[in-house]
């Protein structure tokens, strides 16, 4: 790790202003992704602002019947919350399908949303990587790309967003609440939160420098059967090759979002319209325009099969 100074912020606005004002500063929440990357000198902040004293660790009901989840709520606490388990089961399921018990105790809601890709070339500082070092090229294209993206990718980057929780958040139409360095608050629909790589894969979200996530809100529950089906190389403690989050209603209608295949949780509302016709009808619409590599073409089939499995599970 490179040396850095460390401070704790006491208000969200102060934290945002401090990161914007201090050269090369970063927020630290659970630290489970940032410290990992700092040890490899992929991230080299000169100053860390710790968010643990901001009191953003509560889950409250909103007046329109939804939930407001503080940015610092741990993944374990969120998955265990009785209201989440009852009304937003897919969120609990997605969280407990990720990482390990130890990591989930430390990982936070905002930190989880902002975890970086697991592209092996991003992690290897000897390799060209446009995301880590803009303009250096992409070693994954033409390299070992089994785990990488099949849709939403670009000629500059084919990495995936690796997380599970965000797939459920996308399915639930969550909103990310933030405060900017000038103190202004805004609400970003999760559908607009992640950006596609295009020619700037180092830009991953709609956040501006110093913008702090304060909470994630969920609209009121929509009922249905909640499923999170994750396929990976081992039964536990591994990132998804493909994951499917689904909420299915009695009449067979519902919502579907897919993880592990794109630079963001992948959801196509037009594909959901044919959900009652099954996975074979949904998948071509969901993956229209997909550009898999030789190594990861299997993911196209895997999406359809995982979705089919999820739909069977939903029928009980």
């Amino acid at each position, binding site marked *: *790790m490179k*040396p*850095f100074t*460390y401070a704790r912020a006491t208000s969200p606005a102060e934290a945002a202003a401090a990161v914007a004002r201090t*050269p090369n500063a970063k927020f630290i929440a659970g630290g489970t992704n940032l410290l990992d990357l700092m040890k490899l000198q992929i991230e080299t902040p*000169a100053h860390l602002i710790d968010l643990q004293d901001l009191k953003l660790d509560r889950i409250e009901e909103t007046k329109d019947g939804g939930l407001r989840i503080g940015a610092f709520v741990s993944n374990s606490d969120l998955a265990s919350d009785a209201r989440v388990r*009852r009304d937003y089961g897919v969120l609990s399921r997605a969280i407990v399908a990720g990482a*390990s018990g130890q990591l989930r*105790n430390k990982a936070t809601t905002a930190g989880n949303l902002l975890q970086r890709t697991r592209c092996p070339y991003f992690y290897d500082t000897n390799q060209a990587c446009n995301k880590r070092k803009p303009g250096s090229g992409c070693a994954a294209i033409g390299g070992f790309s089994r785990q990488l993206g099949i849709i939403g990718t670009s000629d500059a980057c084919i990495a995936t967003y690796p997380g599970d929780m965000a797939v459920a958040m996308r399915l639930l139409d969550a909103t990310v609440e933030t405060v900017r360095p000038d103190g202004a608050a805004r609400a970003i629909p999760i559908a607009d939160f992640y950006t596609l790589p295009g020619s700037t894969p180092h830009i991953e979200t709609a956040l501006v420098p110093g913008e702090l996530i304060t909470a994630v809100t969920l609209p009121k529950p929509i009922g249905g059967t909640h499923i999170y089906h994750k396929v990976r190389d081992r039964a536990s403690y591994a990132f998804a090759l493909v994951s499917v989050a689904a909420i299915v209603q009695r009449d067979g209608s519902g919502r579907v979002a897919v993880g592990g295949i794109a630079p963001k949780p992948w959801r196509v509302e037009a594909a959901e319209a044919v959900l009652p016709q099954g996975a074979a009808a949904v998948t071509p619409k969901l993956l229209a325009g997909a550009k898999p590599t030789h190594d990861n073409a299997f993911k196209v089939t895997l999406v359809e099969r995982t979705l089919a499995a999820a739909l069977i599970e939903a029928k009980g």
Partner: protein
Amino acid sequence: MDIKSETEVSRRGVLVGGAMTAGLAAIPAAAAPVAAQQERPMTMPVTLTVNGKKQTLEVDTRTTLLDTLREHLHLTGTKKGCDHGQCGACTVIVDGKRINSCLSLAVMHQGDKITTIEGLGTPDHLHPMQAAFVKHDGYQCGYCTPGQICSAVAVLAEIKAGTPSHVTASLTDAPRATNAEMRERMSGNICRCGAYSNILDAMSEVAGTNA
């Protein structure tokens, strides 16, 4: 390790770093964050309660909780396997929750209560989980064992508290300490010797269930 001499080595590094910073200042804006990089190791005081004992230390901000325990407090029971959150050898219990001490900075734990394997029990008064690991041979080389035991103790507490897992059938019913539940919840602790089934026997005994 002599901590003082380590600091002196880094001071020499500062001189080199200082010269580098001056050189970098001339390159264009894109490199500005690099130029602004703090080259001098920064230290800070931190007070932690480790196994019931209050400890005040001056640490480099980069020091992980794991290195603080091992190198500064000489509590070498907690092990470093991967240093990247992938193996669980460094598992300790902080304010009642298990975490990977390798992915946490000491300075993030000001005022926290930390329990390591040394604090769970002593050779004369073993924690029931330690005794069960001995009885069931829940290890071979023993390297992963302190992390396994800290994790196992916390896992049974998590099941009691109703925390769901990936294999919990119903999210609205209380989970039980079944074989499948304990296996899934222990997946963050890797054992190169493959002592898994004996670890499960030890946990089942403490949980009062049949393996």
